[in-house]
């Protein structure tokens, strides 16, 4: 194969006066502006581009578009590395640097090519078989190393991606003559019309031929106000005509500096009607060694000549069983490429299809190809007698054409059905899909006049809300099946996945006959090209092997995406800090200034502790917890969920929501409540206080704030619509400054707080409304998650930092501490207080965590109550929350450690759910869910973690202050 540049006027897309330097495998090369990497490589006479997926066979450029299966390259370095880019779609630019894939040390000399020697041992389903025998593990490392294409990037993407939503009345996908005609038809009828085209230019196959009609059509479309997006590939049709498309904003070589550039834009387009005008893909023939560099699609060679001014070789042989090859052969010769012969597999080619002065060998086929890294010739024999070689042709280019495969993917994604055309050997849409009509070649309409006329009618009909007219299918010319099981040799069906005709035959023999099984067993049709050039050939072969028509074999269902989409485009701006924006505390800056070590807890970015210089997180948590127990401490509890519930029926409503009767609370009183789901499972807990006759204050857990508000709303709206209740989430409206410890009140008193908040005047589990100077309202709840005297001061979020500062001014005289979540976890575990989600799971019922008695007392119904009366809920062997202490008094049990006391195999009896070193006791303590735990107090159990075993004693929590005196102050 000896590609070269053709003289003008060939190469309509080139700007001949603008050379572009680029690099391929480290080599400096020059192309022209307008070239793709593939056309530039061909123009430079480079045939060998990469190595194949499984067998490391040399591969070159096979096509001229989206269907490319072989010329796949890695582009760029570091944060600009993109894997598996199709060279046929990649415009060359200054700075572009591309590399061959799946070869080492170089594409010319590839050690992995030894794989080819073992090819007979690597048939379809090879690795499935190793699952059975002898062992997949023997082969896995080698297969993972040897197989594959490009390499994954190792550092984060340096560039930016974004997403945009759009809506339109009519969306046209494809910018060829049919797409343009459809857009003109729709826009003329007054519909807002958007046209997206994957290429940089409109016009399709007629465009690069310089067709005047298509240029005029484009001008008309633009003058009618059709909105056009080029370099935008519509890759998926989803429910209700949501079409996703990816726009290439700047190319692979665009960025060379450190500044990020906008690389791609993901369009989410809602359209009332979609018109697919995606064209057709040429289908290759299957013959021995049909993967050699220099074997290409016929139409691709024509396009390279006409659009890019590149002759892919000097002496071409065309092999076909389709009428479509004849005009293409004439076009090639017109472009100055010698055509040695046209080999037609059919015994009686259409006489009218023959071109003058063209040597046609009918009823013949290629039986071998010479040359490994570039075609040097081929041997031809009669179809019926492959062993009787007729002739050797000294060619450097073999072009095959078995007709077309309409790009029916979008039609199929939209739910449309397909039908098989026997004479043309192709699948076409069987009528329109819901919400989507196909026009032009992707509908099976190949004549340009017929396609344009039909597309215009479809555009008009859909714009006016009428059903689209039926497609006048035809014009592609007759085609034979293109594939045959008769010949010998390595005949590739799927070039990207190294699937041969023998693999298909093997699949049939092993009874993987369904098209879905065929695909999974042989991997045909997978990969970045999604089988555009292989699917139809594979199922024709399968049909031959199993005595079925291609229509009976059928196709696999096409699913989005139509072509590979980068993860960057899908992620868009949702990366890094924007991936999941953290919620910050209202006094965030104050904590930062006071030495907080922040961590994310659920959605919140909160102080884990306030370590001193050189102090570890654990040591800080121990010091802070002890500081609270000995004196007093300040905690920012603002993430605690807060709901206000109003209305005459608010009390009864809360009775329904919580285990624990709330309606009997007097104003100013508060009560602990467990929230269950309908299965009786504990999903949240919190404190409910009554602010007024018809006004309630509900604290949920920090992580459960939104979930609980949503659950309340669902019950109110869907199940209890007659209750007069209003639910308002106010979590971010109110900050929570918690003061805890034996000296908590003293601290508040010194800071000037109202005497009505003194422990003597305000009992544990009560709530008082008060105000700071200046009228800042306070809702002060006496509650405790530390086990000490505690005040939760709720105040408008804007004032949180002021209150922290005001209290912290007295910290020295109080010997007070700031404490974070880690210290809080230490203290609540010492007290055996439940942390829903850590000490409970999706099966935990109230009785399992020590709240069984309340249920018997509460006569009224509540969510989940009936489920607690099921026999399974009363099983004494349920997982129940207990305390654990290591018998040695030293070993900290690991959270998640499994409890299994009997010798294996024995059932696991439970697991550790919370575990801390208790600074108060000087030894580790833990909480665990243990089967039948409530009656196993005093028992010793074995706790296993990562191969280590610890003996622990089952105890009844709490570990600290079992009488619960401290909370009362």
């Amino acid at each position, binding site marked *: 194969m000896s590609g070269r540049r053709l003289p003008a006027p060939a190469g309509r897309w080139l700007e001949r006066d603008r050379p572009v330097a680029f690099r391929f495998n480290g080599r400096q090369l020059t192309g022209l502006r307008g070239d793709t990497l593939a056309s530039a490589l061909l123009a430079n006479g480079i045939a060998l581009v990469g190595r194949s997926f499984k067998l490391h066979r040399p591969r070159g450029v096979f096509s001229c578009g989206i269907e490319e299966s072989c010329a796949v390259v890695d582009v760029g370095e570091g944060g600009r590395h993109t894997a598996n880019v199709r060279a046929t779609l990649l415009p060359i630019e200054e700075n572009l640097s591309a590399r061959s894939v799946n070869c080492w040390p170089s594409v010319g000399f590839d050690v992995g090519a030894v794989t080819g020697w073992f090819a007979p041992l690597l048939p379809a389903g090879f690795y499935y078989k190793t699952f059975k025998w002898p062992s997949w593990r023997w082969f896995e490392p080698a297969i993972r190393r040897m197989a594959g294409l490009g390499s994954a990037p190792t550092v984060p993407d340096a560039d930016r991606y974004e997403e945009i*939503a759009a809506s339109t009345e009519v969306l046209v996908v494809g910018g060829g003559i049919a797409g343009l005609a459809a857009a003109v038809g729709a826009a003329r009828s007054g519909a807002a019309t958007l046209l997206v085209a994957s290429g940089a230019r409109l016009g399709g196959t007629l465009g690069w031929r310089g067709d005047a009609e298509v240029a005029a059509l484009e001008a008309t479309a633009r003058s009618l106000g059709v909105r056009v997006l080029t370099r935008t590939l519509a890759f998926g049709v989803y429910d209700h005509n949501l079409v996703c498309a990816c726009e290439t904003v700047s190319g692979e070589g665009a960025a060379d500096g450190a500044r990020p550039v906008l690389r791609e834009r993901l369009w989410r387009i809602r359209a009332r009607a979609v018109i697919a005008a995606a064209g057709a893909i040429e289908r290759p023939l299957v013959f021995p060694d049909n993967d050699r560099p220099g074997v290409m699609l016929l139409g691709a060679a024509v396009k390279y000549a006409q659009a890019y001014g590149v002759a892919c070789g000097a002496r071409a042989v065309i092999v076909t069983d389709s009428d479509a090859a004849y005009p293409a052969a004439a076009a090639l010769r017109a472009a100055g490429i010698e055509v040695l012969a046209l080999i037609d597999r059919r015994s009686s080619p259409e006489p009218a299809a023959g071109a003058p002065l063209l040597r046609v060998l009918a009823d013949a086929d290629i039986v071998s190809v010479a040359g490994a890294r570039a075609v040097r010739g081929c041997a031809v024999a009669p179809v019926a007698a492959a062993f009787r070689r007729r002739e050797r042709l000294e060619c450097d280019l073999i072009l095959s054409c078995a007709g077309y495969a309409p790009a029916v993917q979008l039609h199929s994604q939209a739910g449309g059905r397909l039908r098989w055309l026997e004479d043309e050997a192709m699948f076409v849409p069987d009528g329109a899909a819901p919400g989507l009509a196909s026009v032009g070649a992707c509908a099976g309409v190949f004549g340009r006049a017929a396609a344009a006329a039909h597309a215009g009618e479809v555009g008009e009909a859909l714009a006016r809300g009428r059903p689209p007219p039926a497609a006048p299918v035809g014009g592609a010319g007759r085609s034979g099946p293109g594939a045959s099981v008769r010949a010998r040799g390595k005949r590739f069906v799927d070039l990207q996945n190294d699937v041969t005709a023998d693999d298909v035959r093997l699949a049939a023999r092993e009874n993987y006959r369904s098209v879905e099984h065929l695909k999974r067993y042989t991997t045909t049709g997978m990969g970045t090209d999604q089988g555009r050039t292989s699917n139809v050939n594979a199922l024709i072969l399968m049909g031959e092997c199993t005595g079925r028509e291609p229509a009976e074999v059928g196709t696999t269902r096409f699913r989005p995406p139509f072509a590979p989409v980068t993860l960057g485009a899908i992620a868009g701006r949702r990366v890094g800090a924007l991936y999941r924006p953290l919620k910050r505390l209202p006094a965030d800056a104050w904590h930062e200034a006071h030495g907080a070590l922040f961590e994310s807890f659920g959605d919140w970015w909160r102080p884990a502790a306030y370590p001193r210089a050189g102090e570890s997180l654990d040591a800080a948590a121990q010091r802070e917890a002890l500081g609270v127990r000995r004196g007093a401490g300040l905690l920012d509890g603002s993430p605690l969920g807060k709901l206000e519930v109003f209305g005459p029926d608010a009390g009864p409503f809360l009775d329904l929501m919580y285990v624990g009767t709330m309606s009997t609370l007097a104003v100013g009183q508060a009560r602990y409540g467990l929230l269950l789901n309908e299965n009786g499972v504990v999903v949240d807990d919190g404190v409910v206080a009554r602010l007024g006759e018809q006004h309630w204050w509900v604290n949920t857990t920090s992580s459960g704030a939104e979930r609980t508000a949503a659950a309340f709303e669902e019950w109110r*709206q869907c199940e209890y619509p007659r209750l007069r209740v209003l639910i308002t989430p106010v979590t971010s409206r109110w900050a929570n400054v918690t003061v805890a410890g034996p000296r908590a009140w003293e601290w508040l008193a010194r800071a000037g707080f109202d005497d009505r908040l003194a422990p003597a005047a305000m009992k544990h589990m009560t709530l008082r409304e008060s105000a700071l100077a200046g009228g800042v309202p306070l809702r002060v709840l006496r509650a405790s998650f530390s086990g000490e005297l505690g005040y939760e001061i709720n105040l408008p979020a804007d004032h949180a930092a002021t209150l922290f500062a005001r209290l912290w001014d007295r910290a020295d005289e109080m010997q007070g501490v700031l404490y974070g979540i880690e210290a809080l976890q230490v203290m609540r575990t010492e007290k055996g207080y439940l942390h829903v989600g850590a000490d409970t799971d999706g099966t935990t019922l109230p009785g399992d965590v020590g709240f069984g008695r309340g249920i018997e007392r509460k006569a009224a119904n509540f969510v989940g109550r*009936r489920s607690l009366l099921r026999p399974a809920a009363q099983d004494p062997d349920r997982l129940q929350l207990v305390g654990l202490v290591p018998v040695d008094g030293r070993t900290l049990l690991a959270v998640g450690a499994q409890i299994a006391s009997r010798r294996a195999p024995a059932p696991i009896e439970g697991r550790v759910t919370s575990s801390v070193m208790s600074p108060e006791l000087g030894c580790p303590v833990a909480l665990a869910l243990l089967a039948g735990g409530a009656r196993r107090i005093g028992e010793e159990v074995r706790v296993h973690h990562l191969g280590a075993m610890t003996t622990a004693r089952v105890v009844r929590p709490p570990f600290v202050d079992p009488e619960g005196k401290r909370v009362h102050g």
Partner: protein
Amino acid sequence: MRDETEFVCGGTTHIARPEPGASDAEWGEYLFFRDNPKGMHRERWRHAFGCGQWFNVARHTVTHEVRAVYRLDEPPPPDRPPPPDEAPR
């Protein structure tokens, strides 16, 4: 018109919640068993990233066509066969 991503499906609607005195079998049926029809399905949805309103939807499980949107306290609309050109395949 609002985007679909603003809404969250809350599962089958029009499920009668048994009385507290229901048998274990009835209660289990209510908790754990749902129809999985190929065709029209009535379900409740919430405008989660919006007003928070719950409402009922009659949706075709094959074509995802939304046949009706109606209030929680309204009866379900009668089934009608889909037009022939939209019949599920």
